[in-house]
């Protein structure tokens, strides 16, 4: 099963030349300066406070720490965060 999935993924990224994040449903983070973060392919919000945002993705949870967070928009696919971003890491809020 894993082999099939791996082959199918390789076909999509190699032969069809699809972007990797689309082919493998990976999260795509775009950081504009230190005060705006766009995150695609998220699976939902695990935690949202003014200092922390934890988002579930296909590769696990991604946490963003900072200050004055405000979700400018959040849809089924795209999440746009505003605020001073200090740190981005995988896992729970405690993981550094």
């Amino acid at each position, binding site marked *: 099963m894993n082999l099939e999935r791996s082959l199918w993924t390789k076909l999509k990224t190699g032969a069809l030349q699809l972007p990797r994040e689309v082919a493998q449903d990976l999260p795509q983070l775009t950081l504009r300066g230190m005060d705006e973060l766009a995150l695609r392919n998220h699976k*939902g*919000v*695990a*935690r*949202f*406070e*003014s200092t922390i945002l934890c988002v579930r993705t296909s590769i696990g949870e991604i946490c963003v720490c900072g200050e004055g*967070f*405000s*979700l*400018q*928009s*959040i*849809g*089924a696919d795209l999440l746009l965060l505003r605020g001073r971003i200090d740190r981005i890491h995988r896992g729970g809020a405690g993981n550094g």
Partner: protein
Amino acid sequence: MADPFVNRVRVRVRALSPERLINTALRAGVALYDLDRESARELTLSIDAAQWPQLRRILRQLGARFRPIGRRGPFFAWRHFQPQLWLFLCLVVCGLALYGVSGCILRVEVEPRDGVDPQALLALLEQQGVHVGMRPDGAQLRQIESQVLAACPDYTYLALDRRGMVLRVRAVAATPEPNVGRQAGTDIVAACDAVVEQIFVYRGTAMVRPGDTVVRGQVLISGAWSDTGGASGDVTGRAWFSGEGSCPLQNTVLVPTGSKIVIKRFQTPWSCVIIEGDPAGEETARVDQTHAALLDGLFLGVHLVTTRYETLTQAPQRLSEAQARSQATQAAFDAALQRLPLGTQVADTAVDARIQGGRAVARVTFTAVLPIGVPGGR
């Protein structure tokens, strides 16, 4: 930057787990905007007005307490006008009134031009449907122009030009067709004494031939037997136009005496007062105007003008015969030129100048080839 043209509802939500609310809304396809975490259990968010009923349902299902705290967008804009409803209504009424009169013609102006009677033209336009209060478009105006031109041959050009609420009418009157030799129902007669050079008969019977001498009023082409009731044709003839002039050999002219007068005038916008050097009773010629000084301290148009004159006296002048003949010839030339019809080409000029009884007398005769046939009564 929030889009001002999108209708949004701002809601304050109090729930046990705001994250759960966000995820439930996302799964239901509801997009959320401007989320702020107010406290551990409070969340403020914005939502498209169209999705507000859906979110309200979700919030009720989750048992969350919520309260709309603001509405924004064109759909809710009327709320801002509610306190000044009368002002809003006035604006709407003014807008409607402006729209109502914006396309209307409130005045019809006829551009003044020779041969165009504004009253008659306005009456004609009114017959074709041009009136105050109409809302014409370009195609309609062009159609009216065509109709007026077709209905009235008195105009060769007509333009209806709409300038805001004024309709400007520009018309050019038709130039009457030259009727020399073309008018039906008459004979063609000679306009002056001449020798016939060419004759073209379009209708009627030729009464003269090239080379015949005709006198003024003589029938050139007769329309008596024309079945359409008139003669028509072109007759060209050779005619002579003379003028006479004379000039005395002994003449009196004004010559300067050498003495000069300086006249100072006090000139105001209302009058002029001579304050020095009155030249009354003397023949003078102005030599120069020295200056016009603005009086000190006065800002009105008050000037002190100094003008220098030279006194003149009458003196006999003896002209030579050649000079007298030249002046007489010039006078005769001018007199003959005045008798020549406008636009006529002169084929030959004859000048006869001689001294007769102490005067030079001259006679100038132009020989011209011109149309001589004009309509004349039978």
